[in-house]
């Protein structure tokens, strides 16, 4: 009963706030509430058990459930949404027309929490759509022409992905015995489905697009680059994890499917390096962070892929843990990017140092959550080559993060008296603390390992040497980096502009043909021809 109430409140409170926005007066007063809207979700993550919540009748019902991956991600996502909400409220103070931002924010929040909790195919699809539309609206809040373009690219990609997903979900539903629409039943039925391969391909492509898998990652730098800081924080942290979580839930990780797992891992690892390579050619902190997200999501997908290849059900837990860590750190670093840009002089180091700890944590800095995350996924990546690649990726990540820190420092306010307002600095500090502490809590609470194991000297050393190599490379980058070619932000989509011109020309041609078809004699001829074709189709088949 308590669980039901908690789950209802988790999704219902943001949704109710969203509906309340219909009234303009409420909408204008909404910003202070943004920080509180995710609190019910936090409570649910902490106190709800795994009893499902079912709304509807026997023929069709929406169901929600808090499974282990969902709980981990919901917990950290709620923290991030709350902190980012406080940050956003500070930015919106005194702003006229905050309505659009607030509506998109609440819509995205509702979708995000809903997707983390959804237990049936239709509810999942619906909430994912809410999430995508809301998030594209958040990108739009940048208000510039680039924001419009980025938002269009984001929404376009998201909807293409949803088209793949819809096809995949229909296949899932058709293959599930007795018409159950529960994700759990659907995933269990995949290995025996007559359309197993197609289903998996559709799901992986659809979710992979949303997770930013190379080569469909280009929306990330575009979107995060133009979105307001808090929006970029929740999008790179929480929103993108929805698709990772969906991969974890939909793929039958307890059955070894190396034909799918290994390619997935390979694509993921490729993305992990690709993000680094392009990222180090960038100079805006937000863009560097975006490419880091490309890299990290690639690594996460590689973990899931290896789990699928090996039929390792435990991969779900460690992948979720890795995702949870990335969620906290990436969210925190985006906030840091915003805070640093408004800070100068002596204050700066107070803001930069925590950022450095977190950033290097992604590379696996010992004693940080990042080190734990790397340690947790290690068993899944125990294949010889993959293990080596994982280590190389840690080196690359360190390199990229050091580059980020340099860009971050360079982006600081030139005014030495500038200090970020408390309303933004405090959320950032809160996220810093959460990113340090929460992974340790989760690590032991979920039974992935114990603290004492994680603190063994051998393990600490194993985490340290990639850092040192990465640091060495970073020195090299700073010395010779100017010789690197510069990739445009959003690499592929920018490079593919000429292709668009061809598409436009095709559109012209099509419009011309359509115009001809609408001429009276042509339409009349079409009519007669159709009579003959239809009659013929019946005649020849009927004989």
């Amino acid at each position, binding site marked *: 009963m308590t669980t039901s109430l908690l789950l209802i409140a988790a999704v219902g409170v943001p949704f109710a706030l969203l509906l309340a926005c219909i009234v303009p007066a409420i909408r204008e007063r909404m910003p202070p509430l943004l920080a509180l809207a995710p609190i019910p979700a936090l409570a649910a993550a902490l106190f709800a058990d795994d009893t499902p919540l079912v709304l509807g009748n026997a023929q069709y019902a929406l169901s929600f459930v808090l499974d282990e991956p969902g709980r981990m991600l919901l917990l950290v996502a709620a923290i991030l949404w709350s902190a980012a909400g406080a940050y956003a409220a500070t930015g919106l103070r005194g702003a006229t027309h905050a309505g659009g931002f607030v509506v998109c924010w609440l819509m995205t929040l509702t979708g995000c929490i809903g997707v983390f909790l959804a237990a049936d195919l239709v509810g999942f699809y619906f909430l994912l759509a809410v999430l995508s539309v809301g998030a594209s609206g958040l990108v739009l809040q940048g208000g510039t022409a680039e924001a419009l373009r980025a938002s269009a690219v984001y929404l376009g990609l998201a909807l293409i992905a949803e088209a793949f997903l819809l096809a995949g979900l229909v296949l899932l539903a058709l293959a599930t015995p007795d018409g159950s629409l529960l994700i759990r039943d659907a995933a269990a039925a995949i290995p025996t489905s007559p359309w197993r391969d197609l289903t998996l391909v559709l799901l992986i492509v659809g979710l992979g697009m949303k997770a930013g898998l190379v080569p469909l990652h280009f929306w990330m730098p575009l979107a995060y680059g133009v979105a307001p800081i808090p929006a970029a924080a929740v999008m790179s942290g929480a929103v993108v994890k929805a698709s990772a979580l969906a991969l974890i839930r939909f793929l039958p990780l307890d059955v070894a499917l190396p034909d799918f797992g290994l390619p997935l891992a390979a694509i993921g690892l490729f993305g992990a390096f690709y993000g680094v390579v392009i990222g180090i050619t960038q100079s805006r902190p937000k863009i560097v962070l975006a490419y880091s997200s490309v890299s990290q999501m690639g690594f996460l997908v590689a973990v899931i892929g290896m789990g699928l290849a090996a039929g390792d059900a435990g991969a779900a837990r460690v992948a979720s843990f890795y995702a949870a860590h990335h969620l906290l750190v990436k969210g925190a670093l985006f906030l840091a990017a915003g805070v640093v840009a408004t800070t100068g002089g002596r204050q700066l180091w107070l803001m930069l140092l925590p950022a450095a700890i977190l950033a290097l944590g992604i590379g696996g800095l010992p004693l940080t959550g990042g080190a734990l995350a790397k340690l947790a996924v290690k068993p899944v990546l125990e294949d010889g080559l993959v293990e080596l690649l994982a280590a190389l990726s840690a080196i690359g990540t360190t390199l990229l993060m050091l580059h980020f820190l340099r860009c971050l420092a360079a982006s600081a306010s030139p005014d030495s008296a500038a200090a970020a307002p408390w309303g933004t600095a405090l959320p950032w500090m809160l996220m810093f603390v959460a990113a340090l502490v929460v992974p340790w809590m989760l690590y032991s609470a979920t039974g992935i390992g114990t603290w004492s194991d994680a603190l063994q000297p051998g393990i600490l050393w194993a985490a340290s040497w990639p850092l040192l190599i990465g640091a060495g490379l970073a020195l090299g980058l700073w010395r010779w980096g100017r010789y690197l070619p510069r990739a445009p932000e959003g690499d592929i989509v920018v490079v593919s502009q000429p292709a668009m011109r061809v598409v436009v020309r095709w559109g012209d041609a099509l419009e011309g043909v359509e115009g001809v078809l*609408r001429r*009276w*004699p042509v339409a009349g001829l079409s009519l007669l021809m159709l009579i003959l074709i239809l009659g013929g189709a019946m005649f020849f088949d009927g004989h």
Partner: protein
Amino acid sequence: MNTPTLFGLCAVALVGVGLYGLIVNPQPLRKILAFNLIGSGVFLLFGAIARRGAAVGMGGDPVPQALLITGIVVAFSATALAVALVLRLFDEAGSVTLAPDAPAEPPDA
């Protein structure tokens, strides 16, 4: 070859002639005329079928014959509406072409 079949074939030929005229003749009035030709072909076919159904002392099946009267009146109404449209178009535009041109934007309200 008996009378109903002969007129049935005649009806079919009328439909063919009308179809050709409806497609190729650009003048709307001639299209209306062609429509009437096709229509009369269809009616004639129905009449031939009615005649084939002559029985119990009736010269033809009365149901199609009754429907024919309805059909002729409906075709006349259609013709009247179409002619009125053509005439109004002529009054407004000074021409009666049907060629689709890029629809101009209506003047700002």
